[in-house]
């Protein structure tokens, strides 16, 4: 039985999506799939929340969206990282590192 999935901390989902898209444009399903595989299903993310985050970030111009066609000729909405998005990703990654090391210092070596 897999462990109970962790709930994502606030704001973390954004940074994960941004990082996911550094490997090229993806549609929403592909992002969800990639996240699942890479985190080995550790996180429980409702797909709805994922799409909300995607649209929100598109509105804030961190992502650019375009409708395209996949291999099976279905219409899909592809998201790409913008320059602003990359800047945001760098900033948040740095913040995350600081956060993690600070917590680590308190908790000490296991």
């Amino acid at each position, binding site marked *: 039985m897999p462990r109970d999935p962790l709930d994502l901390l606030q704001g973390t989902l954004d940074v994960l999506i941004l990082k996911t898209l550094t490997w090229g444009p993806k549609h*929403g*399903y592909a992002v969800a799939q990639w996240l699942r595989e890479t985190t080995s299903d550790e996180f429980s993310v409702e*797909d709805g*929340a994922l*799409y*909300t985050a995607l649209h929100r970030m598109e*509105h804030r111009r961190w992502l650019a969206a375009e409708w395209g066609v996949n291999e099976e000729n279905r219409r899909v*909405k592809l998201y790409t990282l913008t320059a602003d998005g990359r800047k945001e990703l760098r900033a948040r990654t740095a913040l995350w590192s600081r956060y993690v090391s600070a917590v680590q210092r308190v908790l000490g070596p296991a």
Partner: protein
Amino acid sequence: MTPADRLRRLVRLPARAHTIRADVDAEIAFHLETTERELVARGMSAVDAAREARRRFGNVEEVRHMLGLLGQTEASAQRWGQWWKGVVHDMARSTRTLRREPSFVAVVAITLALGMGANATMFRVVDRLLLRPAPHVRDDGSLSLLYFQRETTEFGRVTSSSQSYPAFDRLRDTRGAFADVAGWWATDASLGAGADARRVHINFVTPNFLPLLGVSAYRGRFFTAEEWEVQPVPTAVVTHAFAERELGGAAAAIGTVLPIEGTTYTVIGVSPPGFVGAVMRESEIFLPMATGVGGSIGKEWRSNLNVRWLRIVARRAHGVSSAQAGAAASMALQHFGRSNKKSDSLATVIAGSIIPARAPDGAPQGRIALWLGAVSILLLLVACANVANLLLARTLRRRREIAVHLALGVSGGRVTRALIAETLMLGVIAGTLALGVALWSDALLRKTLLRNVAWDSGQVDLRLSLFVAALVVVVSVIAGLVPAIVAARTPVMDALKSGIRDGGSRRTGIRYALIIVQGTLSVVLLVGAGLFVHSFSRARSLDLGFAPDGLIFVQPQLGGIANSAQDFDQRMERIEARLRSLPGVLGVTQSVTTPFESQWDKGIMVSGDQLLPPLKGGGPYVNAVSNDYFTVMGSPVLKGRAFTNGDANGSPRVAVVTETMARVLWPGKNALGECFRCLLYTSPSPRD
């Protein structure tokens, strides 16, 4: 998705609401289907897979709603941005297009500028004359200027605004009508003595005049109630303009002395800038009535019933309407007239508006302003029709360009907007020119048709600019709307094909209609102008009964100087002699009244004791003149002789009557040798 929607997406126009919803649905559907397929591939049943997919998604409806909202916010922000960019783009395009057609721009701008400029001027004039009381008069609805009307048998209703002092006194006590009543007399006087003497416009006022009008002193103070006394201290209040011009500023003016016609006045206060009194007449100095009126009206001015010189302004009592005040005052005046045997027994009092141009029986300035206002509106309509026609012709020339825009998917509304932007730009150029036209014609009006009005110097003020801006918008819409709508309705296919005829019948119809409108209005204006010129030239060539060319009227101000009637006569003789010795002077005469300036009427009796009834136009008018009067004035004496040196004090009294009077008094007979008697009233001048 329709081709139009695809096109919109292609050119990145903001999506419409249904497209946003469709996109969100498509995205969610794709996700759910792909999840289902994957789950089925892993061995789930289709039904279970569907359920699981939805479960993993979360609240599908909520998410769909949220995404829809986000999309719409995005779209409307885009639309706003595009609208603004569109406006800027329109302006830029208009500038480029217009720069390529300088002569067109010039014609349109000048046409509109003339129309708008005339209207802007008339707006200022009408505003100043008809919509507002004299500057600084506080109009809270209770002030009234008083007018007196009498029905005469021959000439109908006669309205005057002057009264005698005893009548004024009586009106002051009218119960139930007025809370306060003040009077003034506007006249000219000489300031200073000798070679430095100059004419000033003064107002003799009752001490409550300035407070009644609601004016407060700009500097110093105004007159106090004690100044009603018979022997007051001669104090003066000066206008701000006079203080600035002659006394070195408002602050420095207080305390200066002004020698006016023999009395020395001390300046005690300065009125606010622009204030000239209750009516729009040039004014420089306000003096207490008791200090100087005697010199001109006579020492008995307070009890003299015969001379009507005083104008009256009143503040109605609380809750009393103009009609009620007028009725009460009429009763009082008629009673006064009956007890004193004056024609006031037949008069009615009208408590008229505090705006001087709204006098009953219309002051000429008010009527002139209204007429000119109507003319300028007509002018503007002609200009608009003209420009609309020009714009329409231009639009038709650019049909192909517009058709290309429409074919590319620009909406008809957008095309209209672009054209209106162009018209607006033309309007703005014209508006700037119009301000210049307004200033110029304003100065012209003040010098010609509307003299004798005390204008405040304001040039371009905020109200005028706002009015011109409003005119620009209105005119642009009027002139530009029809061409713009026609442009938007251009049939795309026909216009794109080459070799098309110039305009369908409907377009030509509009152009003809515009031309007809222009023609009609222009004819109306031309006819009006022609009539005006005709009346004017007739007035100029009227036979006045005397020869005005080369005549100069001199009015020596001797009021305060002459001590007695004899002294007055001697001074006048000396003045006459000095004038005769001037080179270029052919003759000098003295006269009590001046044509068009003053009249003097007396009762005339022929045989029996029957007073001559009032004549059409007033009268009978008399004048007392010295010997050379008829030669100097160029009025020929038809029968008999003119006066000579033999007709002096003590010799038989002689008179010269006009032809009209001779016909009235002695119809059919030779007037020479006939007699009449002249009723003696108390004379206002020192002469008998």
